[in-house]
């Protein structure tokens, strides 16, 4: 039974990651792109938890660190989005070219 649950969890994790990738490719709004990145991070967390069910507690500790990194990334990323919005009055990722030249 545990084997079935882990298989389903890994499949769900793969599907969530693919949905996140699709969102990043599909949307122009930087905030929604960030939400899709969070979706991908959570997909990875799910597969780590599923594998820790088999192989011991270490996977769950890595999930802990992934959450801390996600929090830091969200804070800095949203600050960048606010700074860019002050500059352009828009959060379109196609216009984020102020570091290009």
């Amino acid at each position, binding site marked *: 039974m545990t084997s079935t649950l882990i298989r389903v969890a890994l499949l769900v994790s793969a599907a969530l990651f693919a949905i996140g990738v699709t969102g990043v490719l599909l*949307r122009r709004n930087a905030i929604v792109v960030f939400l899709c990145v969070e979706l991908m991070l959570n997909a990875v967390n*799910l597969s780590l938890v599923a594998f820790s069910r088999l192989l011991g507690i270490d996977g769950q500790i890595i999930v802990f660190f992934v959450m801390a990194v996600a929090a830091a990334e969200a804070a800095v990323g*949203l600050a960048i989005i606010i700074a860019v919005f002050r500059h352009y009055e828009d959060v379109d990722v196609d216009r984020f070219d102020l570091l290009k030249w």
Partner: protein
Amino acid sequence: MTEFLFFLLSAAALLSAVFVVVSRKPVASVMFLIVTLFSLAGLFVLLEAHFLAAVQVIVYAGAIMVLFLFVVMLLNLGHVELPDFRSAMARLLAGAFGIALAAFTAWTLLNGSDPLTAYGASAADPIQSVLKARGAIGALAVPLFRTYLVPFEVTSLLLLVAIIGSVVLARKEAP
């Protein structure tokens, strides 16, 4: 019962994840992502990661998503020049890429060997025994503060850098 709940929560997570991508308003996207995070917390409980389920609800759905909502409401979005969704060609390519990625990973998982035997997992349940010995929090805390003490301290440094960086970046005058 466990399996039924697992399938239900998986379906809820996937469905709301799709709505995160396709809903037009950013606020609706954030709300659907919160539903996904709650469903994932339920899946964590069913996979015996009780402490992580609590952290998922408190830190992710509680703190990070509130940050996102604040930013969505702070920025007055609504007068965008370009449409939020890309052109039909890009949509087709993005959808095809996503479906191909999902199909490839699912194919690999379904055709691979059984995860119970493939990674050298012991027959005895590794999580149940440690949960019984130390409890849900102690099971995570003991290795976190012994084996993983240095990464834990580095994480605190990372959070400090993130705090300072976001304050500097979001200042009124240009940095």
